């Protein structure tokens, strides 16, 4: 099992000796201001014998996250494809740009047929969509309850619980989405009581662009989670474009959005609470302008490191009786979904039991 690699320095990624090499290139070394890219694909051999070349063990790589300016060629991409490595790209502002998604290496026609079947028939689709809303709202509730000594939160907890009852009676997807929206509003309403830091005041959820620090954290965290889920789906037979809660016609791999919904409260939100309350992240880690706010490079590094530590940390799984990492839980969620689709076992979304 490999690990994700996060690249914050600029330079060249290269295939060499059947493994990956990172060569850092200082921006003013071979940077052509006019064309705004590294000139060609230079071989940066150091004449003084000091090698800036850093081999990355390919067998240890699960996926690559690029946050900086990187040059690579098709030879490199082909090599990634051979090794089933996903490459996620983030733009200058730290927003998710896209993924190099290598050719599917696990194919199952039978499962695709089942996936589509469960989408086309509204009643079947609704069953799954409800489960996603049920699971994610349960996990949100659990987050609030773990801060329950704070009595002011009770209003929000009640509001969510009231709304949760309606999930079962929702007749179609749009109703369900509305229900989910109400739950999320109540949930976000409670955040100011948990974080208690004026700089991280919530106000309201804004995207594209996020207007304040907490929105910037949520957006960045969600895109990190989205890529992690996509990476796990890639290792299963599931097709990432056929989804149930979100419309499959959306631009992204929407099944990853469905599954990420369950894990947002468990991974992203709790990480944000922790970072703010332990004062690990502060005003200096953000770049604020008139109508947007995003994480600075330092802030991104901090967040990514903490995110990685959390996702790799393990908990004892009740049914399996062994330790499973958060990343492993995401994969297990995919397997549960496959079992449901193939009619082996009804899908039950993950509900936090360990905090």
């Amino acid at each position: 099992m490999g690990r994700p690699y996060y690249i914050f320095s600029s330079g060249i990624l290269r295939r060499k000796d059947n493994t990956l090499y990172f060569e850092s290139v200082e921006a003013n070394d071979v940077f052509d201001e006019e064309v705004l890219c590294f000139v060609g694909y230079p071989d940066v051999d150091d004449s003084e014998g000091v090698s800036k070349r850093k081999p990355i063990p390919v067998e240890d790589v699960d996926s690559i996250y690029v946050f900086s300016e990187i040059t690579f060629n098709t030879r490199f991409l082909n090599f990634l494809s051979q090794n089933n490595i996903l490459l996620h790209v983030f733009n200058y502002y730290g927003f998710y740009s896209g993924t190099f998604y290598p050719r599917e290496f696990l194919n199952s026609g039978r499962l695709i047929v089942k996936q589509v079947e469960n989408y086309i028939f509204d009643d079947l689709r609704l069953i799954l969509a409800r489960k996603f809303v049920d699971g994610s709202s349960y996990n949100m509730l659990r987050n609030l309850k773990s801060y329950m000594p704070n009595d002011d939160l009770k209003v929000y907890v009640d509001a969510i619980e009231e709304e949760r009852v309606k999930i079962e009676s929702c007749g179609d997807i749009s109703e369900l989405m509305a229900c989910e929206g109400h739950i999320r509003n109540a949930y976000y309403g409670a955040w100011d009581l948990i974080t208690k830091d004026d700089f991280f005041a919530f106000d309201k959820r804004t995207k594209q662009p996020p207007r304040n620090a907490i929105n910037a954290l949520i957006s960045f965290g969600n895109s990190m989670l989205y890529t992690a889920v996509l990476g796990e789906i890639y290792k299963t037979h599931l097709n990432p474009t056929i989804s149930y809660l979100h419309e499959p016609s959306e631009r992204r791999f929407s099944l990853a959005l469905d599954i990420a919904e369950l894990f947002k409260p468990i991974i992203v939100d709790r990480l944000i609470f922790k970072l703010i309350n332990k004062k690990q992240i502060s005003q200096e880690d953000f770049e604020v302008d008139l109508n947007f706010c995003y994480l600075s490079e330092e802030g991104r590094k901090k967040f990514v490191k903490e995110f990685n530590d959390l996702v790799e940390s393990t908990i004892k799984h009740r049914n399996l009786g062994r330790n499973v990492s958060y990343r492993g839980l995401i994969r297990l969620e995919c397997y549960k979904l496959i079992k449901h689709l193939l009619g082996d076992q009804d899908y039950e979304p993950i509900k936090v039991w360990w905090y």
Partner: protein
Amino acid sequence: MYYIVVYDVEEKRVAKVCKLLRKYLHWVQNSVFEGELSDGKFMELKYRLFELIDPEVDSVIIYALQGRWRNREVIGLNKNVAGNVI
């Protein structure tokens, strides 16, 4: 399991062994590699090493460490940090 691999092989095979190890582990010093490997990956590496070296003259030592026995202290220059944030 976390592994440390040190090797002392005949000159003509040094580069080959080094390149092979680069695929699996992090380079830390001349002839020293370390890193985390799954059981399967470790068997694969061991097999490939065995195919490469001449057991009569070459020597490769592999230390296997469980997480709780692991502590890393560097005196002097830390030539390479074996991390996943670059």
